[in-house]
Every structure is written in C-alpha cells, then in structure tokens.
C-alpha cells in the first residue's frame, strides 16, 4: 500500500497537469478585448487559482506541514472553487439577461 506522501505527490502532479490547460487559455486570450472573453478570462483565473491552491496544499502535505495544508490551503482552494461556482452562476445569469434584452419575447 502506498504511503500518504505518495498520494499527495500523485495529486500534486495531476493538478499541475490540469493547470496547463487554463493557463494556456489565459496566455492565448491575453490580447483579446472582447467583453464575453473578459468574463471567461476572469473565470479561468479563478479556476487556475483553485488548481494552484490544490497543488500548494498537496505539496505542503507532502512536506509534512499538516496544519498549513489542512488548516489553510485546503479551505483556501475550496473557497476558490466556491468563488468559481458563484462567478459561473452570475456569468450565466447575466448572459441570459443580456440575451433576453437582445431578443425580447413576442408582444401580446
């Protein structure tokens, strides 16, 4: 059976592999001035924040800093994910409102 340290190492590597994709999109969309893109850029920044907090959490746990890992970095990463969820919800809601304004329903 693997030790907990190995699981933390695997987790850190896997999250780093995940972080490549949103980081790539952030770099790619840096020059864009599209408003929609700007909203998604902010969402991507929050997602990268969550992933990097997870990487830091697993590295801290790997190094034996249990209080830092479990007491600070893990809740921080979950807060980032919750913020991402709220931002995603708001972006979706705003998009719907924007679409309703552009295409109002049939007049009665």
């Amino acid at each position: 059976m693997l030790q907990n340290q190995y699981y933390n190492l695997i987790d850190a590597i896997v999250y780093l592999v995940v972080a490549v994709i949103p980081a790539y999109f952030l770099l790619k969309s840096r020059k864009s001035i599209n408003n929609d893109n700007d909203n998604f850029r902010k969402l991507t920044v929050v997602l990268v924040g969550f992933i990097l907090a997870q990487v830091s959490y697993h590295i801290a746990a790997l190094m034996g800093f249990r209080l830092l890992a479990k007491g600070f970095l893990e809740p921080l990463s979950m807060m980032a994910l919750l913020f991402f969820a709220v931002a995603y919800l708001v972006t979706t809601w705003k998009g719907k409102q924007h679409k309703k304004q552009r295409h109002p329903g049939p007049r009665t």
Partner: protein
Amino acid sequence: MITPMENVNAGNIATSLYPLQNIGDVTLVLSLATLAIFAWLALRSRNIKSFQFQISIFIAFYLLGEIIESDRIAMYLIFPPDIGSQIHVGSASFFAIMMWLRFYYAEKRGKEMVESDTGDESGDGGEVKGNNSGIGK
C-alpha cells in the same frame, strides 16, 4: 502520526487534531455549497456532456474522499485507511481527463470548452457551436 483510533483511546478530544477537525468541517461545507451550485446548473442544462455536470461529478468524488478522510467519520468506517486518499487521486485524475478531453474536442471541432448556458430552453445544454468567445478559445 496520530490516528483517529489513538484519539479515542486517549479519551482526549483536545489533541493537536482538534482544530483541524473544525477546519475540515469548514472545507466540507464549502465543498457542499460548491456542489449544490454546480448540481443545480447541471440539472438546468440537462446534458451529461456539459461542463457543469462533469465538474459536479468531480466535486462529488472530492467530497466523498473528504468525508471518508474526516477523522470524526473515519473511526466508524471499516474501509482501509488510505481509501480517502485514493478517492482524492481518483477525483483529481477524473478532473485531468475531463479537462484534457474537453480541450482535445474543443480544438478538434472548434467549439467552446465550457458551454455557455444562455438560451438552453431547447435542452441541448446551451452549447454554442462555432462560437469562439468562450473559455475554450
């Protein structure tokens, strides 16, 4: 290393793990709130291929690992001691596969990586085909 069983045997709740248990509860609540939001969005999109649904699965797995790893709950379970960590690795792997597959198909088909949920009354998950303004492009 202090295990949950050692905690019980010592009969002393105020060990070095006690503050971590409280913070662990905070993490659980935060994960639950996040899961609730994405699950609600996934229900609205009614599409298992949607980003919302897939990230809900990831968070649900993460939460399961977190619950099993929780010291207060772990002492009542008969699972092997590392099962929580294994579930965490599984959820991280699922997240990685999901993101890379979405990236692959977004590049291949020229679609957004994360669907816009605006205007999905048709129940197709609101996927905007050929729209390059989203997170994926």
